[in-house]
């Protein structure tokens, strides 16, 4: 299982230039996603986690670095071939209100993924769409309806069905439950966990929410300022965090049985990273970035 990762990212960098200022969103990110594994990418706004997800599905191109899907390097391929390969990676977005097209029936937008894959028989497509709707816990007849007829939770199920339509190996989910009420969140998380059980599906699960990541992920990678600062099995990282940033993040999560006293918090000095920083292995599969400017 460990031999052949479905997704492998090596030294990924991405810079954006705006107003003559260059922002480095990713400063050399390397990771592997194994078959039928869920890898959580956790970080705060500006950490680069969404940029990483967008590059993994081909919505953005990296400034430098390598992207391998099922053992094949794809970032150097000509665009048409690359697009073909990237069909293996599908995405679920945070906001099911804006990620669905309001003017197309649900069936049509789920079916487009199949059409793009080369299926031309709409009867066959409709059959698959109905099956997909059932798989995500919706009724087959819903294919005829429009997005506005559904609640937020149902729309996110539709978005999941659409992502699954081209039969991808990898699903990148960027904050897929953040816009939902807690009771609905639980249902969508259960659904994502269920869908993985009967297949080869792997998730790259991007989130700011430690509890959600703990619920779903096998391994997690903590991102800070465009770098992965700590990576390992979910329980190991949460119960034995090594990097000061990971500790800071975990400590900030509200919890029962703790009261805020109202003392002025000591401002936390965040560690500085540089390209020369190396990873240290804490335990099997658990690595931490040795940031020179640590606390």
């Amino acid at each position, binding site marked *: 299982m460990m031999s052949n990762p479905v997704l492998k990212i090596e030294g990924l960098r991405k810079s954006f230039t705006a107003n003559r200022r260059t922002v480095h969103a990713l400063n050399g990110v390397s990771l592997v996603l194994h078959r039928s594994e869920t890898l959580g990418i956790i970080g705060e706004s500006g950490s680069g986690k969404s940029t990483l997800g967008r590059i993994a599905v081909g919505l953005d191109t990296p400034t430098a670095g390598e992207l391998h899907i099922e053992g094949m390097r794809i970032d150097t391929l000509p665009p048409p071939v690359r697009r073909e390969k990237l069909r293996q990676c599908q995405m679920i977005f945070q906001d099911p209100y804006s990620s669905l097209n309001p003017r197309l029936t649900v069936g049509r937008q789920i079916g487009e993924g199949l059409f793009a894959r080369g299926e031309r028989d709409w009867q066959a497509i409709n059959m698959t769409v109905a099956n997909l709707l059932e798989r995500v816990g919706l009724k087959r007849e819903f294919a005829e309806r429009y997005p506005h007829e559904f609640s937020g939770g149902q729309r996110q199920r539709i978005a999941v069905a659409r992502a699954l339509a081209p039969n991808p190996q990898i699903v990148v989910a960027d904050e897929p439950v953040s816009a939902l009420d807690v009771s609905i969140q639980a249902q969508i998380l259960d659904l994502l*966990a269920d869908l993985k059980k009967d297949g080869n599906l792997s998730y790259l699960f991007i989130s700011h929410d430690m509890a959600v990541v703990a619920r779903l992920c096998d391994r997690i990678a903590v991102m800070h300022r465009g770098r992965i600062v700590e990576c390992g099995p979910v329980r190991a990282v949460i119960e034995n965090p090594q990097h000061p940033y990971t500790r800071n993040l975990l400590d*900030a*999560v*509200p919890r029962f*049985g703790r*009261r*805020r006293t109202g003392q002025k918090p000591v401002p936390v000095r965040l560690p500085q990273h540089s390209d020369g920083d190396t990873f240290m292995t804490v335990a099997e599969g658990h690595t931490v970035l040795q940031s020179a400017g640590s606390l």
Partner: protein
Amino acid sequence: MSIPYLSVRDLSVSFLTGTGAFYAIDGISFDLARGEILALVGESGSGKSMTSLSIMKLLPTVAQMSGRIEIEGQDISAFGRRQMEDVRGARIGMIFQEPMTSLNPVLTIARQMTEGPMRHNGISRREALATAYTSLEDVGIPEPDRVLAQYPHQLSGGMRQRIMIAAALALRPGILIADEPTTALDVTVQSQVLDLLVDLKSRSGSGILLITHDIGVVAETADRVAVMRGGRILETGTVDEVLRSPQHDYTKALLASHLTVDKGLKQRDAEVEGARP
């Protein structure tokens, strides 16, 4: 017991729809004293934000409101626009979820922070600036001078929310309504803003009506909690009572669906175990 600073009695808000009146708030009552944090907790559509808008009389004009809202024993429910202008800001402060939309993008922070005090306290711009400086220091902003000269877009989300809190508290209102004040913020920034709110509560003695969907936030900061659903308060009590021994089925369900890190790990483990042949 002394009179509560804010007292809400049988408050209802309804909208006329094609099929009859829809009650967004359906007869709720609660009190808030100075120096305490009361959390209104509920999911979307529960009526928690409507409650804050009714207290501030910021409801859309088509809304029908009934019931009593008293501040220090004075009924403000019949107050007109002019009278409400003296209540808003000076007696009840308010901060919203998204500080970017509540700050004016084309005015400097200095300008926005001096407007209120100049109007309500009749002080000069120079005095108002001095107050603004101190208020910014109070909420832990390191270089108030620099921030005062800046525009909202030049500041981070956490800084903007601190500024909103500073601006609201500069008028020394008896209570502060905080509607999802940390929902749009990163968790480490949320942590700082929550510390700040609790700190300000104990220092300034203002009461805080904290509107949130996050039970974790309630557990750490609130003194009392009211659980809302469908425009009604289903259960109310001290944080310990409600979170440790919830009485209403909905509160129980809400607590059960609240995901913590520990619970998440356990659920995942159970699933991994179950999948093993």
